[in-house]
């Protein structure tokens, strides 16, 4: 069991990194989205630093969304998913590993790139520290909630649009607590309550999402 988890995670990461895998695309999208906003609203650093927490969080949300629709789809199309469903590893484990791989290839790069972008937007240092912290706490929830949406829409042709309609409302609590904690820290207030609630949402999601995603996968494999 332990070995199958590890080899599955290795497979996901190799597939993501090799040609056509699309790892790093989320990061590129994150960079572009953050670049476009100053071009749109003007270069005043005071204004940009005011909106930076929310802007960076919204951009992270959209970047996480970008690669979700391929999470299970390729494996369903070539029959791999059916083989995996007959394996000893339950589908819940498969969904969790897929979501973890998605986080490692999409969420984690965002966490690492965020401080640089925050610097360009003039976010105060206290805010930058909490930005990294809150993204590290919150982006796993984005990947795991996304796994539910990806599993629900895996059989839908051109499911990308409907996936975003399903998943983005589910991101609301994560966004609120994540952006709020950065905002509080940037304004010299105590961000702990928001960060704790963010951690609670993430932990709850880590528990619920594999079950819901596996249920949806079972229905789609029927």
């Amino acid at each position: 069991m332990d070995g199958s988890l590890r080899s599955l995670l290795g497979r996901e990461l190799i597939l993501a990194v090799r040609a056509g895998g699309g790892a790093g695309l989320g990061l590129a999208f994150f960079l572009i989205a953050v670049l476009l906003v100053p071009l749109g609203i003007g270069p005043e650093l005071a204004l940009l630093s005011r909106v930076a927490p929310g802007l960076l969080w919204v951009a992270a949300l959209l970047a996480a969304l970008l690669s979700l629709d391929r999470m299970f789809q390729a494996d369903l199309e070539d029959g791999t998913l059916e083989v995996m469903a007959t394996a000893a590893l339950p589908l819940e484990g498969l969904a969790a590993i897929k979501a973890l791989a998605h986080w490692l290839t999409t969420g984690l790069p965002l966490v690492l790139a965020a401080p640089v972008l925050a610097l360009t937007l003039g976010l105060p240092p206290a805010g930058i520290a909490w930005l990294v912290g809150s993204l590290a706490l919150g982006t796993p929830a984005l990947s795991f909630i996304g796994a539910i949406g990806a599993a629900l829409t895996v059989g839908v042709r051109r499911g990308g649009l409907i996936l975003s309609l399903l998943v983005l409302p589910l991101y609301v609590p994560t966004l609120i607590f994540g952006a709020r904690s950065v905002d509080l820290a940037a304004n010299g207030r105590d961000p702990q309550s928001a960060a704790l609630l963010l951690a609670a949402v993430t932990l709850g999601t880590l528990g619920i999402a594999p079950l819901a995603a596996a249920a949806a996968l079972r229905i789609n494999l029927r």
Partner: protein
Amino acid sequence: MSVWSYANPARFMRLSARLLPWTAALAAGFIAIGLIWGFFFTPDDFRQGASVKIIFIHVPTAMMAINIYAMMFVASLIWLIRRHHVSALAARAAAPIGATLTVVAIATGALWGQPIWGTAWAWDPRLTSFFILFLFYLGYIALWSAIEDPDKAADLTAVLALVGSVFALLSRYAVNFWSQGLHQGATLSLDRAQNIANVFFWPLLTSIAGFFLMFLALVLLRTRTEIRLRRIRALQLARAAG
């Protein structure tokens, strides 16, 4: 006879055919009485003037908008556990009604907010959570219409409704954290001491009963339509196969 026997579509069709005219007529009656009573036979508020009377539409639609989602949650649970098709179809039938009433609640709130708050929209927790609720309805409806196989669609939307309920509830309280409220708290209750004035209470209760009955009538009607569509589909498949 247990209530589950009405989960048989044929029995449900017979029962709903008998219930439908009565619920529809009662709904029309209660809404007409509630609104006429509320609009013309209650006093104007000493500060808000006649604009206060929008509560006779705003409050019932807002209540129904939330409760319809709860009904869809229960119906989805029943479908997942007991596999009664009527339950899944009732959840499907309820969603567009819920979405419409959510829009009506937001629109009436905006109409009232323009003169009283001085703004049609504020990023207030209640308003925002209704906006989010509307998106949940849209996603649910979109997923239903995206999947061809009806049983698969019923299963997947049921999973979505369960997950969505958890997150809708979470969002409802998360938005409190994010913004201070402009919207007043609840003042309508059956048992608390602080309650709205009696002159408004009874017509409002009548109107709420009317909107509830209207939802019941619409959901019966739409569920009947869904059952008939399923029958047509089954007939077409049988014809195509034979």
